[in-house]
């Protein structure tokens, strides 16, 4: 079992969380084909990226930085407090 150190919660098993996708800003104009691309298209290549993670028991959202090839967790922050994780 993989355990991760979370602010507020302490050490928790990774399976307690729902990963809700990559953190990326929504484009200003979403119409027509651009909207379709925004809705559907992904850039699913191995990368280090920030993701939304939700913890149902505490109802807290976190920003987690993760390497999608090695599965290493590089940083964790409570969403809204700061997005600059380190």
């Amino acid at each position, binding site marked *: 079992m993989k355990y991760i150190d979370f602010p507020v919660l302490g050490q928790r098993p990774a399976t307690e969380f*729902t*990963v809700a996708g990559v953190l990326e800003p929504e484009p200003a104009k979403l119409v027509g084909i651009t909207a379709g691309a925004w809705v*559907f298209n*992904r*850039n*699913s*290549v191995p990368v280090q990226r920030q993701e939304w993670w939700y913890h149902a028991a505490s109802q807290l959202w976190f920003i987690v930085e993760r390497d999608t*090839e090695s*599965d290493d967790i590089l940083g964790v922050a409570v969403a809204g407090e700061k997005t600059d994780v380190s």
Partner: protein
Amino acid sequence: MSIRLLKYAFIEDHAEPRFFNTPADLKDQYEVIIIGAGGHGLATAYYLARDHGITDIAVLDQSYIGGGNTGRNTTIVRSNYLTAEGVKFYDASVDLFKSLSDELDLNIFYSERGHFTLAHSEATLRTARRRAEVNKHYGVESEVVGPEEVLKACPQIQLDCGGNHEIIGALYHAPGAVARHDAVAWGYARRASQDGVEIHQNTRVTDIDMHGDRVVGVSTTRGKIRANKVISAVAGFTPTVLAMVGLTSPIEIFPLQACVTEPIKPWLDTIIVSGSLHLYVSQSSRGEMVMGASLDPMELHSRRSTFEFVSNLSDQMLDMFPFLSQIKVNRQWAGMADMTPDFAPVMGTAPVEGFYIDAGWGTWGFKATPISGKTMASTVANERDHELITGFNLSRFGDYQLVGEKGAAAIGH
């Protein structure tokens, strides 16, 4: 003892002929390059040679043939899908599978077992009824049955599933089958090779070379090769290859894990699937229980296995078959599944000239191996999508024309 075996014992040269011989060097140019020597890539090469007379083909693989998802699936073949596009396509695949041993002159151990998709709730039963009607409309054997018929086919099953998930019915699909997955890849490789196709293992494509909007070749770890047409058949590496030609897609990579137990006496004739319990199981010809579950919960470009997977799967398995509690899990593994939002594949022509996609095979690719090869070969030879795959083109996402196949997926997602 067979005479053949007896003769074999007395001859000095024990070596069987190799399945395929590959020239040591790559040529500078091929008419068609296929990236990925899995079942789909090799089948495409074979049908290009057989049906369209195109033999100047190189199939390149970063590793060995059939080492990706072709050798990592749980070998189930069925056609009880939910959409018209899906049912027609997979039914054509089942037809090809039935005669594939003869076609490839290699026993692929195709074994019709019957396939039960269990329903533990009224909602699942409703989907099953709809699937049965769609299937029957297109001539596919498929019917909703009650728990007593499940019990008749599999007397060992606990219908109350530990008390929490009682089995109230099932979708029964008589043609559901299993096959030896490696043999499918090897068989296609051998026949393609006999027709002049070159298969180069340990040759990774690092980039796709473009001239304006068209593909002109590939760069590999063994140098550059020119080609008029390039086909991507790389399963869990699709987004990386698409990025080489500047395309984006909705495909996301999630690991799918599976495992087998130690071999035991044959007891399970059928294939049992439960989307609600995240479980599918069949017994291999060697007696192992072949088991799989749902996708891992987050995107990952890795084939690592986890203990959580075996532990969760065993938990559900024992609710259904408590007598397996003393059986040991022998091996577990993972594959990288390229998932699409509508659970249908992405196939055919692309907005880049000379580039063709065979992808989005998520957790449902093995059963489509022969028909994918055949339709992709036709698509590449005629430079337009084969009629069976027009609904699967990458453009459907921009046009909002999805092929909703999620209700027919074997596993909960």
